[in-house]
C-alpha cells in the first residue's frame, strides 16, 4: 500500500505568549514509520494533539487519504483511524486493564469478549497482559502495553506514539520496536515522537524536525548522522559541560539498608537500599520512572523520615530528621515536580526562595521573616542562574519550565550544600538551560559536595556521574563506575538483574 495517508498543510496554533506551531507542513505515507523530532517545547505535543482532535488549530488544513480531516474531538479522530499512546499515560489507576481499554474504544464489546480480545492481541504482539489486573499495580512498561493494546484493538491506520521509550528499559525498547515493525509490515503508519536520535535512526523511514514550533527540515534518518539531526533540532552548537578531574574525597552520605513504604497507595516501596557518596562525587541513579525515584528523594530530603541509622551524613545519623533539621546540616534536595512540590505555583519567587532557604540563609528572626534578606536571596538566585523573569515578585507559575528549574536548582546550590539530592534536574528543560544546570551540578561537586542525581535521561547521567546505579521496583542495583559502562550493562541494571550476579560475572 503506497500513497499519502495524512497530509498536513500550514498548521498553526498559538497560546498566550507562545506560538506552539507555526505553519507546519509535512506528509505521512501509508505504512511508514515517520519520526517527529524536536527538543522539549518544540511543539511536538501540540501538533499531535491537533491530529488527535484534542486541540483545534488556529489555521491550516489536514487531509486524510485525500479527504478533508478536521476532527472536532478525539472520538472523531479515532473513528477515522487515528490512535494515540500518550507520553503521560491516560490511564485510570483504580480501574482494571479491561475497563481501561474499553474507555479508549468507541463501541467496546462486552467485558468478557473484550478480555478475550485483549489476551489474543497481547499474545499476538508479544505484549503479555492480564485484563483483570488493576492498572495502579502495573509497572510503567506494563502500563504502556495497556495503552498500546487499547490502540491496536481499534485497528488503527495511524498510530501516534509520544515519547514511548522514556519509560522503558533498553530491553523493553527492543520488544517495543519488534511490535512496531510488525505493525508497519501489516500496513499501519506510525507517527513516532522522540528526541532520541539513535532510536529514530534505527526505526524510522522519514523524519520531520521541529524547532520552536517550525518545521526546519525533513530527512531520511538512516542516511543522516545523529549529529546532523541534532544540529537541525537545536539550531546551533551546544556547550557541553566540562568536568575537572578529581580525587575521591571522604565518604559523606551513607544509606544503610533503607526500606520504606510509599505514602502513595500506588507508589513503590523502597527495599534494602544501601550506597555511599563521597565528597566531590556525583552518584547517578537511573531507572524507569515509577521505580522508587520519588520515594528515594522523599527519604533523603526528610519528607519521609525513617529510622535514624539508615541515613548518615559524616557519620551522624539523620534518618529521623525532617527536612529543616537536615537543611541545618547542609543536606538539600530538589524534587522532580517543579510546580507544587519544589515550588508553590501562585507564590512569588521571593516567597519560594524562603521555602527552602529560611534556615541556611538565616532569613528568619525568632520566627519573623526578614523579607528584605529574602528578596535579596531571590535576586541572587535570579542573577547567578540567569533566570529570565521580570523580578522576584513574579509568581513561580509565570516562569517557563526551564527558568523555574534553574531557579529551583539555583536555590539549593547557592545554599552551599554538603549533600545535594536532585530528581530529574533537566526534565522538560531546553538544551541551553539543561547544559547550564548540569554545569552547576558539576561545579558544586568540584567544590567538594556529595551529589545524588536521579534521572531517567541516561545520556545526562553518563555525562556527569562518577558512579552509576539503577532503581528497579524499589531496589537499587550494584553501584558501578560510570566510565566504561556499556548500554547493555546499563539495561541489565535497569531491568533489575541481580546485583550479586553482576558482581560475580
Amino acid at each position, binding site marked *: 500500500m503506497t500513497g499519502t495517508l495524512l497530509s498536513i498543510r500550514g498548521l498553526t496554533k498559538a497560546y498566550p505568549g507562545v506560538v506552539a506551531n507555526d505553519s507546519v507542513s509535512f506528509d505521512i505515507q501509508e505504512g511508514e514509520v515517520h519520526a517527529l523530532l524536536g527538543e522539549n517545547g518544540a511543539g511536538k505535543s*501540540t501538533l499531535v*494533539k491537533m491530529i488527535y482532535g484534542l486541540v483545534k488549530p488556529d489555521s491550516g488544513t489536514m487531509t486524510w487519504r485525500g479527504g478533508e480531516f478536521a476532527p472536532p474531538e*478525539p*472520538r472523531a479522530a479515532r473513528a477515522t483511524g487515528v490512535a494515540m499512546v500518550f507520553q503521560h499515560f*491516560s490511564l*485510570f*489507576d*483504580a*480501574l482494571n486493564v479491561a475497563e481501561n481499554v474499553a*474507555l479508549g474504544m468507541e463501541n467496546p464489546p462486552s467485558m468478557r469478549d473484550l478480555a478475550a480480545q485483549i489476551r489474543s492481541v497481547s499474545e499476538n504482539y508479544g505484549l503479555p497482559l492480564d485484563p483483570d489486573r488493576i492498572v495502579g499495580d502495573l509497572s510503567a512498561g506494563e502500563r504502556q502495553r495497556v495503552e498500546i493494546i487499547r490502540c491496536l484493538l481499534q485497528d488503527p491506520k495511524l498510530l501516534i506514539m509520544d515519547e514511548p521509550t522514556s519509560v522503558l528499559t533498553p530491553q523493553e525498547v527492543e520488544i517495543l520496536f519488534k511490535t512496531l515493525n510488525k505493525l508497519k509490515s501489516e500496513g499501519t503508519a506510525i507517527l513516532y515522537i522522540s528526541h532520541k536520535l539513535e532510536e529514530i535512526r534505527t526505526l524510522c523511514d522519514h523524519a520531520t524536525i521541529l524547532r520552536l514550533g517550525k518545521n526546519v527540515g525533513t530527512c531520511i534518518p538512516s542516511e543522516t548522522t545523529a549529529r546532523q539531526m541534532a544540529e537541525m533540532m537545536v539550531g546551533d552548537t551546544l556547550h557541553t559541560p566540562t568536568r575537572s578531574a578529581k580525587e575521591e574525597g571522604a565518604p559523606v552520605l551513607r544509606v544503610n539498608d533503607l526500606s520504606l513504604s510509599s505514602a502513595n497507595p500506588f507508589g513503590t516501596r523502597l527495599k534494602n537500599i544501601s550506597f555511599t557518596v563521597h565528597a566531590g562525587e556525583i552518584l547517578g541513579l537511573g531507572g524507569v520512572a515509577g521505580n522508587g525515584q520519588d520515594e528515594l528523594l522523599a527519604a533523603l530530603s526528610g519528607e519521609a523520615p525513617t529510622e535514624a541509622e539508615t541515613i548518615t551524613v559524616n557519620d551522624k545519623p539523620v534518618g529521623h530528621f525532617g527536612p529543616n533539621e537536615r537543611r541545618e546540616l547542609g543536606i538539600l534536595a530538589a524534587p522532580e515536580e517543579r510546580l507544587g512540590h519544589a515550588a508553590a505555583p501562585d507564590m512569588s519567587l521571593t516567597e519560594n526562595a524562603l521555602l527552602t532557604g529560611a534556615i541556611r540563609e538565616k532569613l528568619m528572626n525568632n520566627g519573623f521573616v526578614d523579607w528584605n534578606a529574602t528578596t535579596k536571596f531571590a535576586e541572587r538566585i535570579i542573577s547567578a542562574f540567569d533566570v529570565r523573569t521580570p523580578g522576584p515578585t513574579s509568581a513561580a507559575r509565570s516562569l517557563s519550565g526551564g527558568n523555574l528549574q534553574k531557579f529551583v536548582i539555583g536555590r539549593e546550590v547557592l545554599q552551599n550544600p554538603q549533600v545535594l539530592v536532585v530528581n530529574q534536574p533537566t526534565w522538560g528543560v531546553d538544551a541551553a538551560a539543561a547544559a547550564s544546570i548540569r554545569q552547576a551540578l558539576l561545579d558544586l561537586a568540584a567544590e567538594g559536595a556529595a551529589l545524588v542525581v536521579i534521572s531517567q535521561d541516561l545520556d545526562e547521567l553518563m555525562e556527569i556521574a562518577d558512579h552509576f546505579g539503577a532503581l528497579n521496583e524499589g531496589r537499587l542495583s550494584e553501584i558501578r563506575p560510570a566510565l566504561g559502562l556499556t548500554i547493555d550493562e546499563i539495561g541489565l541494571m535497569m531491568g533489575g538483574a541481580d546485583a550479586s550476579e553482576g558482581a560475580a560475572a
Partner: protein
Amino acid sequence: MDLSAINPVLLVASLMVAATPLLLAAIGELVVERSGVLNLGVEGMMITGAIAGFAVSVETGSPYVGVLAAAVAGAALSFLFAFLTQFALANQVASGLALTLFGLGLSALMGQGYVGIRPPAMTRLDIPVLSDLPVVGPILFGHDPILYFGLLLTAAVWAFLKFTRGGLILRAVGENHDAAHALGYSVIRVRVLAILFGGACAGVGGAYISLIRVPQWTEGMTAGIGWIALALVVFASWKPWRVLLGAYLFGGINVLQLNLQAAGVAIPVEYLAMSPYLITILVLVIMSADKSGAPASLGRSFHASQ
C-alpha cells in the same frame, strides 16, 4: 418508663421510613462524588426540596406532583453549584457551604405561608392479603411508593456504575479527569449531569421528610440529615449497597432514640437527641482508616488548559 410500649414491628417499619430521606440524599451524593465532585450543599438542596415539594403538594393537592417539583427544585439549586464549580472553577467546599446557607434562607422564605398546614397524604401500598400479613405486611408491603423508589434507585445506581458504559465513564472521570479528557470525554458535562442528579435526589429526600415522614413544614426541619448523608457516603466507601445499609442503621438509631424519648427513659431528651450526631462521628472515625474507595480526583477542579 415503659419499654414494652416499643413495638418491634412498628419500629422496623418506621426505621425504613426514617432511613429513606437519608438514603435518597446519600445515593445522589454518591454518584456526584464518584464523578469526582464534593458537593457539601446536600443540606441546602434537601431543605429546598422539602419546602418546594410541600408547597406544590398543597397547591396542587397531589403529593406526586410535589415530589416531582422537589426533584426539580433540588436540581435547580444544584445547578448553581455546578455553575460555580464547573464553569467558574470556584472552590467546591466553599461553593457547597454557600449552597447550604442559601438553601436554608431560601426555604425559610418560601415556607412562610405554609407553617402549620397538613399536606395531602400519599397513598400507601395496599396489596390485598400481603399488606395485611402480620409482621411481614407492615414491614415489606405497607409503605408509600417513594420508599420503594429509594430502594429501586439504589439498585439502579449500583447497576449503572457496575455494568453500563455511562457508569464506567463516570467512574473514569472521577478517578482521573485529565486522562478522561485526553480520551475525549467531556469531564464537565459528565460532572454537571452527576451534580444535577445528586440535586434531584436530595430534593426528593427533603420532600420525603416534609410530606411523609413528619408530615408538615417547619423551618430548618432537615436538621442535619443532609450532612449525615455526606458522612454516610464516606461510611459506605462509595458503594451503593453499603449506603443502603448505613441509611437503615442511622434510621434505626434515630427511630430508637425517638422511641426511647417517648417511652420516658431516664436519659435526658437532649442526650438522646444528640446521639445520632455522636454516632455519625464515631462511624466516621472508624471508617476514616479506609480511604481506598475514594475517587482519586474527588474535590479537584478541572480546567482543560491546552
